[in-house]
């Protein structure tokens, strides 16, 4: 069980997170929706330790993660696939994966995990000696996911994995998310694409202006009038 309680984070005097609390159940896919500027990425960066919270607790299976360095948080079992992927452009695909396993010391385990990533993402295997910066957007997203998995996380955080990708690639990425979850990885993702998220996620939170304003199951989400209009309205417009 992963739990965030009453997190406050600020940029200078601006409160980006105004007391955020939520729970992510083990083995499930939990999705955080919300408009631009709601604080979703800030929350992800705070959980990953890049930003320090002013207040509040972040707990994974009872261990407090708030205030730890990003490297410590990775070694405690939380890995973030950041917004815009952020692969290491001038390092090969293989080196990107090795970097993802930086906290681990088991050589044999790392090697076999790299082989597992190649099996799951065959295109990364084809391009393993290629510089990551030369990959397509979809390939970079797969590399970013694989890099995060190399730390063997108990909780995988994903910040807008579909951002800027073609619809076919988005479908593929969500396929992978569902697959990873079936294999037992707990996933907490931020997503603007509510339609895709509805297909895979078990639990939803809505964040607006630094606060959680809704939580519920996919069924409850689809029924909610306001959310219908704000986040799912595009379906009617498109079709």
């Amino acid at each position, binding site marked *: 069980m992963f739990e965030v309680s009453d997190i406050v984070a600020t940029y200078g005097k601006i409160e980006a997170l105004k007391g955020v609390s939520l729970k992510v159940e083990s083995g499930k896919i939990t999705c955080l929706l919300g408009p631009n500027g709601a604080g979703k990425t800030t929350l992800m960066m705070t959980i*990953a*330790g*890049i930003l320090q919270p002013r207040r509040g607790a972040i707990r994974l299976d009872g261990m407090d993660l708030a205030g730890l*360095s*990003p*490297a410590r948080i*990775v*070694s405690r079992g939380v*890995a*973030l696939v*950041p917004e*815009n992927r*952020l*692969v*290491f*452009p*001038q*390092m090969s695909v293989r*080196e990107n994966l*090795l*970097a*993802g396993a*930086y*906290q681990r010391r088991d050589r044999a385990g790392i090697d076999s995990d790299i082989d597992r990533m190649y099996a799951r993402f065959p295109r990364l295997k084809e391009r393993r000696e290629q510089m990551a910066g030369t990959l397509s957007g979809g390939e970079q997203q797969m590399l970013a996911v694989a*890099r*995060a998995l190399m*730390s063997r996380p108990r909780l995988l955080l994903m910040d807008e994995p579909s951002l800027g990708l073609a619809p076919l690639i988005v479908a593929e990425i969500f396929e992978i998310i569902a697959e990873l979850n079936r294999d037992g990885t707990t996933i907490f993702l931020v997503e603007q694409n509510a339609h895709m998220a509805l297909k895979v996620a078990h639990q939803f939170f809505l964040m607006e202006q630094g606060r959680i304003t809704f939580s519920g199951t996919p069924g409850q989400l689809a029924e909610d009038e306001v959310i219908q209009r704000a986040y799912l309205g595009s379906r009617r417009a498109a079709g």
Partner: protein
Amino acid sequence: MVDLVQNTIDGLMIGSSYGLLALGFTLIFGVMRRLNLSYGPSVMVGAYLGTLVYVQLAAGPLVVLVVTVLGSVLAGLYVERLCFAPMAAGAGVASMVSSFAIWMQLEQAAVLVLPRHTYPFPPLATADPLAFGPFYLRVDGLIMLACALALSAGVQLLLYRSRVGLALRATINNPVAAHLAGIDVRTAVVFAFALASAVGGIAGYLVLATDQQVTPMFGMWATFKGLIAMMIGGLGSIPGAILGGLVLGVVEANSQWYFGPQVRDLLAYVLLFACLVLRPGGLLGEAPSRQQDTGRRGA
């Protein structure tokens, strides 16, 4: 013709020390994307500690080398702590300006402790130059060249074949992503400074042992030579740093011989100017691209 070849040989040897200084510069610049003007002065502090143990304790060359390198590393870490660690990402100018202030501080400290203008340094090699037909090879110059090639190859290996090298390159590529991969970026930065200062300390030792003396001006000299060689060779490129140093050395040696010392310095700057106009990224560096810039800012 004989003169030209002899000058070129001499230029390659002194140029190898420029290359080592540029190597240290480029390591810091690559990791931090910031200019450390105090790089030369921290090597000077190491050299002053070296001459101190040489003069006071009559220490042998090896001890002087160790003291010089350790002193450079300590001074380099001091600069990192004061000018680089406290400055947020994106505050590159603040780091550069404060490193200029620390330069003044280090120079004044050196002059206060050892107020004479020059202090002796143990010679690197006292053997006669080796003669090859009409040409002469200085033994200390050969040692310098060999050290430059070995050290740059060693640093290259370290960067591309070791765990800490992986961490450094990941940090150079994208510091936020390095954090997220579980890399201790702070340790990587400190390591880069220590490594750069150690390389600088070895370069400083080789140069001063060849000159057999050290002055407080050595800090400025080392910063200038390293900076120019780095810019000629290409920011962030290790082979580029060595090549830039060698090119600078050859141009200087020849222009000194044919036109005198004033023109030598002038030509060094003309060379830099030509490089910046024709190949802004340096001989072996990549041309600075807009896309890369926005990537940095985003990080």
